[in-house]
């Protein structure tokens, strides 16, 4: 997979490295600022509140 991507990147090895690092940073940023905040309440393991489970089955806040 990574070899395949590397071969598709244009330019000399310097530009390839720079593009690869840029791609890596972009993916990390999307994960950190978009994907993780969205996933976090769905996998929440840190509930602090005592609460009866909501009738609708929605997650308890906490």
């Amino acid at each position: 997979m990574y070899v395949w991507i590397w071969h598709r990147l244009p330019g000399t090895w310097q530009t390839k490295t720079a593009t690869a690092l840029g791609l890596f940073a972009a993916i990390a940023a999307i994960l950190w600022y978009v994907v993780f905040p969205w996933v976090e309440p769905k996998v929440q393991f840190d509930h602090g509140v005592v609460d009866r489970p909501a009738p609708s089955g929605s997650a308890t806040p906490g």
Partner: protein
Amino acid sequence: MRTVIRGMGELCITAGLIVMLFVTYELWGTGRYTQGAQDRLGDEMLKNWRAPKVTTERVKLGKGLAMIRIPRFGKDYHFVVIEGVSRSDLRKGPGHYPGTALPGQIGNFVVSGHRTTYSAPFNRLGELDRGDKILIDTRDEQYVYKVTDRRIVKPSETAVTLPVPFHAKRRPTERMITLTTCHPKYSAAKRMIIFGELAEALPRAAAAQQAAGK
């Protein structure tokens, strides 16, 4: 065949790295958000406290209500207690159950907080012993509560938030504090509950001077 196996291996390594990044986000990234909210709400609250008192003052949901300090966790341990316990409130810091008593009042002042994520305000609650102090700073006074009990209960045990915990019909006569957080750490299986009782109330300015003089 070989490329397929290599591809699988690369996918596994990638997934592992993403999971590691996610754990970093949970344990550290979320705390940065809380820290920002705490600084903002703390400044706002102190500014309010310095301003002249409004007779109809009532803290809005999501705003700072009081300051909690627990000397056992170190001199620098302090968090702004937020009014409300919705998910977005608890992301900003420990939250006060709306409708339960306010600090110093007769009844039960109930505060809930995260144990491992979002700055983990109640991370070390398990270390509290009977007699340990929980200080609650409000506009005029510092309320000194002393820990009386610790319980592990089911997540649905709302009876701990009653004015007299576990006794729905009894009229409160004591001034209590109740802290709730999840238990064990990194799990939502149970809740840890700390009970405390008001020991004394000092004027806040005097309490601050006393602390500075030590």
